[in-house]
Structures are given as structure tokens and as C-alpha cells.
């Protein structure tokens, strides 16, 4: 695959790995958090840990949309399908998330609820057009990457007067989560900054983490060589006692980002005062909802009686500490025993981008 294989070659990886090994100073620890689940996946999928010196340690961040979605939100989606008879459209990775009463969207489907897996918001709109006598709800989740397509769908639905379409909005904001992690006092020496999120928001929103928190941020693409190059750039900043926002992913990310997408999101969405994140707790100004003045008609939380009810996580589950980078997956007592990708207890085990699922699936031979 052209433009893909070039970023996965072993000889170049060996070159970057040698540079990291040469520049990482013995006796110094480099605790680097990759915020995004996409990076977590790449690190595990390609075995990048094998290519790093022991004192360069990757901490998996909370940038996995499925992982930070609280159980109560899935419960709402299930209730929309089961109690309100809606056709619930969801991206595939949400279907297996464990919800209350031993349910998941997939299990609700088996019980007769109308749950449809979709690949894009356009699929949800099509289903709404094809079923004018049914309510169709899109379970909108994700960071800034998936928000613009939801905004487009809302604009289209408005233009078409699609009365049977609405969204259960769970779009969340990356910088808010980074603030929450740093405020929590986690020992992090630098961030591998998001790839796709940054194509939308640009590199500017991370500048505060360099200036106010003194943390280097290097925005990186999702290919393994991108990640390794970013690690090298972080090691260099740390060695030089610098904290700046640098951009490894110059082929897709600019300082200003996608201004058009930002304007669209701003037109359709407004900030929620607070939002509960799984693992990180309730964070002010960290999520979006449809603008009350223009988009309220398409908000499933207003159209249907499905109040959000917070549900406590399993007591033994360490997802909260893992999502904050305070613990590693293998330090959780139920990792790989009670909690596996087949029977996930915590959210980090559900999505392939989750820290626990990635470690279990790809790295568990490393004990």
C-alpha cells in the first residue's frame, strides 16, 4: 500500500530506535503519555515497546472514545431502542460495551431491539429516510475527529426536514481531558499529541500545556514510524529542558487546523457545563451538546424521556487509574482473569484502542 507501507518499514524503525537509544540518557526516566487510543493501538500492534530502551515508558492515555463513555450513556442508548422503539444506529466499537443489567447494545439486539451498526453518519441518515414511520437515533460518540461528520448530518437533517432523526450526543473534547489528567497529578514528562483530532483542532490548543504546565507535546500521525519519530522528538525536548508544541504530523496537521470544520461544529454544537467521563469523573466544559437555540429538535435527550443515570464502575476495576496513567493494565487484579476482551468488565478492555485490550490482545506474552 503506497503511502502506508513507507511508514511501517523495519529498517527505518531500526534507525529511529537507534537514535532514541543513543539520546535517551541513562539514569533518567522518560514517562510519555500517548493520549490517543489510535497511538495505543499502533504501539501494541507493531510491537513498538520492543524497540524502546527500558527507561522510555509509554503511558496509555484516555483518548479512546468508547473507553471514556460511562455505562449510563450506553444504558440510555439501550433504553431508546428497547423502551422507545427507536432504531439505534451505532459505530461498531460501541456494540459490545457492557451496560447495566448484563446488557450491551449487541445483547439488546439479540432480545429484539432495533440496533444497527453503521460506518458513517450518512448511513444513519439513510436509515432515517428509509424508515419514515420509525424514530432513528444516532449514538454520536468521539473526540473532535467524529464531531464534524455529526454536525454535517444534523445540517442535512435540518435541510431535509427529517423529523424522525435525532442524536444521543456524547462528543467530548481532548484538551479538557488533558487538563484533567495534569490536574490529577500524574507523573508525565511529555505527550504524544493526537493525530486525527489535531487535523481538526490544529496544534494551537496544546500550547497551553507547554506554556502553563511545562509539558512537551509532539503531535504524531498514527503510523508506527510517526509514533517513534515523535518519541525521539520528545526525548530531545526533555533532554534540552524545553517544553514546546512540535508537529511530527506535518503532512496533515497545521497550527490552525480545519477552520471550516471548526466553524461547522461551532454552529451546530455548544459546550455542556459538565460531562461525566468514565475513569476521569465529571469534568466541566468537556463535552458538547446540540445548540439549544437551533438544534434542540434533533437532541434525543430532549425528544425522549431518557434521563442520564450515573452507574458506578465495578469496584475491582482499575480503569480509572489506568485511564489516568497511574496504573498499567497488568497491575489490575482482574486483568486477564475476570476481565478479558471476551468478557470485559471495564471499558479499557472493550475497544481495541483501550489500554487493557491492546495489552491483552497484543502484548500479554511480555508478562
Amino acid at each position: 500500500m503506497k503511502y502506508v507501507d513507507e511508514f511501517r518499514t523495519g529498517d527505518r524503525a531500526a534507525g529511529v530506535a537507534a537514535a532514541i537509544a543513543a539520546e535517551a540518557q541513562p539514569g533518567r526516566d522518560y514517562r510519555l503519555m500517548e493520549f490517543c487510543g489510535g497511538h495505543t493501538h499502533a504501539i501494541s500492534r507493531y510491537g513498538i515497546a520492543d524497540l524502546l530502551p527500558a527507561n522510555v515508558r509509554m503511558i496509555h492515555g484516555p483518548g479512546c472514545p468508547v473507553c471514556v463513555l460511562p455505562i449510563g450513556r450506553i444504558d440510555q442508548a439501550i433504553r431508546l431502542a428497547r423502551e422507545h422503539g427507536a432504531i439505534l444506529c451505532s459505530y461498531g466499537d460501541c456494540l459490545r460495551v457492557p451496560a447495566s443489567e448484563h446488557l450491551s447494545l449487541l445483547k439488546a439486539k439479540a432480545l429484539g431491539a432495533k440496533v444497527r451498526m453503521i460506518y458513517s453518519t450518512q448511513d444513519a441518515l439513510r436509515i432515517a429516510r428509509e424508515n419514515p414511520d420509525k424514530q432513528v437515533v444516532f449514538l454520536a460518540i468521539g473526540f473532535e475527529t467524529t464531531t464534524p461528520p455529526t454536525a454535517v448530518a444534523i445540517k442535512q437533517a435540518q435541510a431535509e426536514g427529517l423529523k424522525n432523526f435525532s442524536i444521543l450526543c456524547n462528543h467530548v473534547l481532548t484538551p479538557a481531558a488533558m487538563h484533567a489528567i495534569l490536574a490529577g497529578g500524574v507523573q508525565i514528562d511529555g505527550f504524544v499529541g493526537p493525530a486525527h483530532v489535531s487535523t481538526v483542532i490544529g496544534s494551537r490548543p496544546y500550547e497551553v500545556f507547554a506554556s502553563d504546565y511545562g509539558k512537551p507535546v509532539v503531535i504524531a500521525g498514527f503510523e508506527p514510524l510517526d509514533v517513534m519519530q515523535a518519541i525521539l522528538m520528545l526525548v530531545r525536548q526533555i533532554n534540552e529542558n524545553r517544553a514546546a508544541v512540535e508537529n511530527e504530523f506535518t503532512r496533515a496537521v497545521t497550527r490552525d487546523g480545519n477552520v471550516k470544520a471548526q466553524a461547522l461544529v461551532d454552529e451546530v454544537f455548544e459546550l455542556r457545563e459538565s460531562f461525566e467521563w468514565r475513569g476521569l469523573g465529571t469534568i466541566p466544559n468537556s463535552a458538547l451538546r446540540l445548540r439549544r437555540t437551533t438544534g434542540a429538535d434533533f437532541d434525543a435527550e430532549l425528544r425522549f424521556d431518557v434521563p442520564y443515570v450515573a452507574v458506578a464502575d465495578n469496584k475491582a476495576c482499575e480503569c480509572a487509574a489506568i485511564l489516568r496513567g497511574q496504573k498499567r493494565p497488568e497491575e489490575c487484579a482482574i486483568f486477564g482473569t475476570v476481565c478479558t476482551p471476551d468478557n470485559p468488565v471495564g471499558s479499557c478492555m472493550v475497544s481495541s484502542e483501550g489500554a487493557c485490550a491492546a495489552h491483552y490482545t497484543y502484548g500479554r506474552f511480555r508478562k
Partner: protein
Amino acid sequence: MKSDYIRPLDIKHGRVDMSHGSGGRAMAQLIEELFAKHLSNEYLAQGDDGARLPAVNGRLVMSTDAHVVSPLFFPGGDIGCLSVHGTINDVAVMGATPLYLAAGFVLEEGFALADLARIVESMAQAAKEAGVPIVTGDTKVVEAGKADGVFITTTGVGVLRQGVDLSGANARPGDAVFVSGPIGDHGTAVMVARGELALEVDLESDTAPVAASAQKLCALGTDLRWMRDPTRGGLATALNELAQQSGLAISIDEHALPVRPEVAGTCEILGIDPLYVACEGRLIAVIASGAVERALSALGAEAADVGEVRAEPEGLVLLQTTLGGSRVVDMLVGDPLPRIC
């Protein structure tokens, strides 16, 4: 007295109705004018509830497989030939010579007879090419909406070759792991044929019999340890079963895996790993390291030596990545590609 005139089945425009499963005249006509016509052989011609088959010399192998693929017709094949290949391949990779097939059809009311005829013709063609007659069968009809066109279950019987006893437990550290050709073609072709993904990919299913290749490998004697056709769950799942059965580790090299660019590209877009995508005309084998050259010449130009059996870590499949790292290749969780066969 004149014999009763029976209007022939309208294959071109007709549709399956409930009477075709009733056991009465309509069913008899469907069997005679459609199934028996295309699948004819001396055993089917006996016309009884079962087939009387000649005695065989050796241990029998039996395998059954239900086919629910959607769509029914896809580039490179259809549910008909797939239902023949699926079962005879399962028999063949046991080290047996496939001898006979039985076929059970669940038809949905309203299904076009023209499509059914295409499917049965395809089965007949596949059975003929493989030299394995369909000797008995059954047809049931369910109401519209209770099935999806047609489901086909086939059962195959074969006779085990003398001295052949294949098992994952035969594998030894140092043995080589082979695949007979590119992986993931079938699953990718079917997925794209569904048309839900708005992808255009020039790719055909690999559905085909593997019995000839299997027979050549059996000639290696005890140097052939184990064979499997990596259908649902793909190469990764079959190798995990091998790792479990042998209690050994299977190490595969990402560089050496044969994956067509069309398959790699489609999987990349969909976030699916080709290691988990079904093949329907490939086999994988574990061969003693001393027999590698003979195995390669038996399997043909598309075959590849993709890895080796190791002592540790027990029960796991490891992949040496193109990047130079390593990772576990786990059993599949969930089903990213339902109804692929």
C-alpha cells in the same frame, strides 16, 4: 388412457412457495426438474430416503458445514459452490479423500427459482470438478421473512489415507508453517459484494477445492504434521487452535504473509486485520523443517513459508511485525464479518 400432463416448473419466472416443501407433488417436481436434473448420479437416482454406498477400505472422516453467506452470489462464486468446497475441504485437510456429499436446503418462500437453479448448477459443477457426488439431500421451505433466500447445509464423508494421522499435537519446535496462497480473498470479496461499504475492489473469492494440494502434502508422510483450511476467523484463528492443541508457540513473520494489495487496502480502510479474514480455497500446513522444499513444490507458486513452531510462549501465536517488534495474534473477539460463509 392419456398420462397426466404436468406443467413444467417455470424456472425463469417462478418462485418458491410453501408447497415446495410439503412433501407432495410440487416438491417432487422441484426435486426432479431442478435438483435431480443438475446433481444426477447413480446414488441419487436410487430415489430412496438415503443413499446406499459401496463399502470402503479404511477409517471414515465426516464433516458438516452450514452455509448462510450474504450475498448469495459474489465475485468468484456463490453459496452453491461454496457449500461444496466448504465441506469437502474440511474432509480433505483431515488427510482424507472426500467421497460423498449430502445437502440440506432451507428455502425462503418467494425465493426466485432462477436463482435456485443457478445455485444448484454451481453446486453440481463444483461437485463434478471435485469428483465428489451429492448422493442425498433434503429441502424445506419456511415462510417469507423467516430465512434469507436459501441456507445450505452439506455433510461430507471421506476415507482416511493409510497411515495418515494429522493433529496439532504432532507439531514440533522447528517445524515450518505454510499457507498455500494469499489470505483473506474470500471474506474481503464477500464483504465488498454486500455493497454496504461503497467500496469498489477488483477481487474474487478464492473458493476452490483444496483436496489436490492436500493429497500432495499427505505424500510427505509423517513430515506433514497438521493441515487446516483457514475459513471463518482466518489464518489467526486456525493458528491459535494449533497453538492450543500443540501446547507450543507459533511464530509468524508479517513480511512473509501473502496478502493481495486489494485485500490489504480494503482491510486497512475498514480497520480489519487480514489475518482474521476468511479464505475458502487455501490450506495451511505444519511441515517438518527437512521437508520444506518438497512442500513448496507440492503447493505451487503461490505458497509461502510464513513462520515456524517454537517451544515458547506456550499456547500463543506471535507475529514478528514489519517494524521489527513482536505481538500476540489472539483469538478473534466478536465478529467483524458476520455471514461470510
